[in-house]
């Protein structure tokens, strides 16, 4: 197992390097400058600004310096928010996004798994149909539709939750539901599918034949096997949830990392874009590894030798 993890970690570092290399140059070759504005910038000022950020050096030197700084843990300065370093911006925004992501995940897992199990256990009954129809609605309803509907209903009309912002647990409810619902829907369908497959397996029949109670059969035996596809799905899903969603965070004005994905690119805030790309890729890589490790633990058929 340790050997497996070490091997994968080495691969991850290489993958991350390739990602950094490619994104660094792709962004730099995009037209437009971080300093352009309606009023023309005097050439002397522009020159000094370029020098301040090191953009005046040859591209290869810039990349070398950037890599050197990354190794030291320094992600550089933001051009759009000159008072902030990229490290600072990520340190401020990422935890908020992660909190939101955590609750979205909680919502997704609780609702999704419950609906999925109900669907599988009560297959082809009205319970199954309504759970799966709801899941279908959840999958088809994009967050930019669900978010405003929730705001309209719960914030503007019933005044139960704030319409946006950050600060209390109440602020989290609507964005977490908006963000988590689509995942809940996928999880419901995956759980149902996984469970149905397992429920027909021989070892379940054996369990029932042994005279085990239905509850024990479902939760102790079927569930463990049925949940495997969900675990696979959860890896990338958690990564997505933890780095935030542009749409949901914009709708609810959540001060998280999500909006930077778009804004930093539009602002040509080179170092900020890179910082976010690195954080996101690192999350994705680590979580994928984690999923594989968990797989080995919960599925006795898988062994990493």
């Amino acid at each position, binding site marked *: 197992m340790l050997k497996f993890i070490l091997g994968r970690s080495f691969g991850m570092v290489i993958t991350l390097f390739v990602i950094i290399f490619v994104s660094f140059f792709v962004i730099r070759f995009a037209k437009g400058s971080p300093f352009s504005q*309606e009023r023309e910038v*005097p050439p002397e000022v*522009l020159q000094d600004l370029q020098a301040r950020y090191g953009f005046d050096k040859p591209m290869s030197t810039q990349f070398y310096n950037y890599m050197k700084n990354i190794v030291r843990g320094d992600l550089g300065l933001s051009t759009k928010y000159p008072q902030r370093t990229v490290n600072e911006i990520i340190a401020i925004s990422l935890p908020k996004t992660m909190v939101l992501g955590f609750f979205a995940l909680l919502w997704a897992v609780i609702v999704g798994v419950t609906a999925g199990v109900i669907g599988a256990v009560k297959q082809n009954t009205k319970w199954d149909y309504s759970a799966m129809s709801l899941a279908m609605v959840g999958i088809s309803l994009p967050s930019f539709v669900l978010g405003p509907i929730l705001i309209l209903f719960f914030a503007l009309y019933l005044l139960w939750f704030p319409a946006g912002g950050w600060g209390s647990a109440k602020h989290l409810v609507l964005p977490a539901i908006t963000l988590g619902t689509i995942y809940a829907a996928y999880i419901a369908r995956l759980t149902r599918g996984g469970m149905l497959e397992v429920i027909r397996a021989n070892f379940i029949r054996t369990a029932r034949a042994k005279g085990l109670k239905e509850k024990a059969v479902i939760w102790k035996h079927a569930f463990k096997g049925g949940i495997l596809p969900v675990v696979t799905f959860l890896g990338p899903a958690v990564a997505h949830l933890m780095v935030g969603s542009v749409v949901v965070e914009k709708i609810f004005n959540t*001060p998280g990392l999500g909006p930077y994905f778009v804004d930093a690119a*539009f602002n040509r805030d080179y170092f900020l874009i890179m910082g976010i790309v690195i954080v996101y890729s690192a999350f994705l890589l680590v979580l994928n590894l984690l999923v594989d490790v968990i797989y080995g633990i919960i599925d006795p058929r898988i062994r990493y030798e």
Partner: protein
Amino acid sequence: MPIKVRTSIHCLLMGSFLFACTNSQEGPYFGKTVPQHPADELWINGGGSPQYMDPSLIHDSVSSQFGRNQFVRLVEVSTQTGKPIPDLATHWEVSNDLSEYTFHLRSDAKWSDGKALTAQDIEWTWKRVLNPATGSMSGALATAFANASAFSHRAIYVHTRNPHEAFDREGFEKTLQSKFKIEKFEEPINLSGLFVYVSDSVEDKQKYRADLLAYIAAKMPHLSAKVADSSVVQVRALDTHTLWVKLIGPLPYFLSMLDYHVFAPVPQHAIEAAKKKTGREELWVRPEHIVVSGPYKLTEEKFKQYRYFEKNPYYYDAEFVKTPKIKVLVLEDYNTSLNIYRTGGMDWAGSNVSVPAHFVDEIKKYRDYSLSPQLVMYYFYLNVSKPELSNKHLRKALSLAIDRKTMVEKVTRAGQIPSANLIPCGLAGYTCAPATLFDPEQARKELAQAGYKKGDKLPPIEIKYNTAESHRKIAEALQQMWKKHLGIDVSLHNLEWRVFLHDRTEGNFQLARGGWIGDYPDPQNFFQLLLSDSSTNITRWKNKQFDELMKLSDRELDPSHRLELMRQAEIIALDESPIIPIYVYTKGTLKKPYLMGHYEDIQDYHEWKYMWIDDRWYNEVPESSLPQKPYKS
């Protein structure tokens, strides 16, 4: 509650959105009218996150509100009269030719740490703004000071070592021109000698400067040469409370200009202290380091969430500042802002977000909505350096064939004022030149004069605009109007903002959308967009007569004759049509009825110091007992 729930479900099922569901239960105001916070606070929306807080560096409208409310300027332009009134300067003397000013500062002016605010601070600030190393993108405005341009362009200042020795300028210029690439020579004001501006690409300038300096040192020992430093700039603190400035010439709009935040003094001692402490100068505007001179001071900053500003007790006029605490939210999206405004999360939707066109019809029913014209123009720039647009008759045809009235009534729909003039008419007493809003007949004649008869095919023309729903609609309307009235086809090309700016700066466009926000309320600020040597001349249009008239107007001492000269310049510009104006912007905003002291302002500044909460609204005073607010439909 159940009835409420049932109604809500009904609304949702009916597929109706926000307003349809809320109208029936709404009063004359949009959402809550009881303040959701203590009366000594004010909650406003600042728009997005400010890029800068340092007034010397600010160049966008989101940031400028923080500059203006934290830092005093020498004068303030009255929102009522549009005339400069004393602020930090109590009075001033002007030389007869309007080019020299002596300002007398308030003796009680202090920084928020108790230190006296002196004329030296102002001198230091203005020279800092001009220094390219500071990185101020608005520094160009400060080149109004004599010799300032030489400093900010790092020109080389050459003079004789012996002050009594004559300087053979002609011979010197000839020698230099034969050896180096020179952009121009310029005679300094109030100094002997000469400024030499080297030309070439920015990267190479440094090398050329060094070469030139070395050359002069080696071959012209009687001359002294160095890169012009801040000492050449004709701004001087005569004593702690007297400031003297010399301008490049008479600038009748100089005082209005001084109200712009770039001219607000910044605290040298605090900036240097922050740099010493943190190693990064730009951190001086953080709450823990900031020192201000204006009515409010930043005390708490939550990045991307909100900022708290508290009344600065050292502000000279502090006793008249009404609200002790201001919370400024960071909300970029108007839909979210509307929601939060409605639930009472803010008292004023702020300067930097405008009610989107598709909401206006609905929102304008409410009495907390107001609409005011702005010092902002919507233009299309024509690139006259492109052969297909070099013909003025074609340009005029394009301009005349735009039905501007229909454009604002049917397309933009937020009360914009259609305009074929380059500036908002009536600004600072200016009478606009005659301009035709729409004349398809004449447009067709002009097109024929341009050499294109009916059915003739024009070279392909493309309109570039930056990606936004509103700009797309306007560009599409133009496309249809030109097809209908002139029978010509143009194509549309939307570009992401930075790419758009890049193309426009490089001249890689035929028609490009543009706008201009007046930096100061004077027509000159708009007309300078067309000066041959202006860095903001996007159209590449050059006209000697226009330049001459504008130059004359800058030197004209009689205000009404000055406006007349600009009017003549505008007549030329309209006849040549390098810019097609579409409309004067308006700002539709929402403010709660309990928010007082919020005045209409064409520059949209709305200083916080005048605002306060009418606490009678906490008890839901029947609105009939309150004075009516000015309401426009």
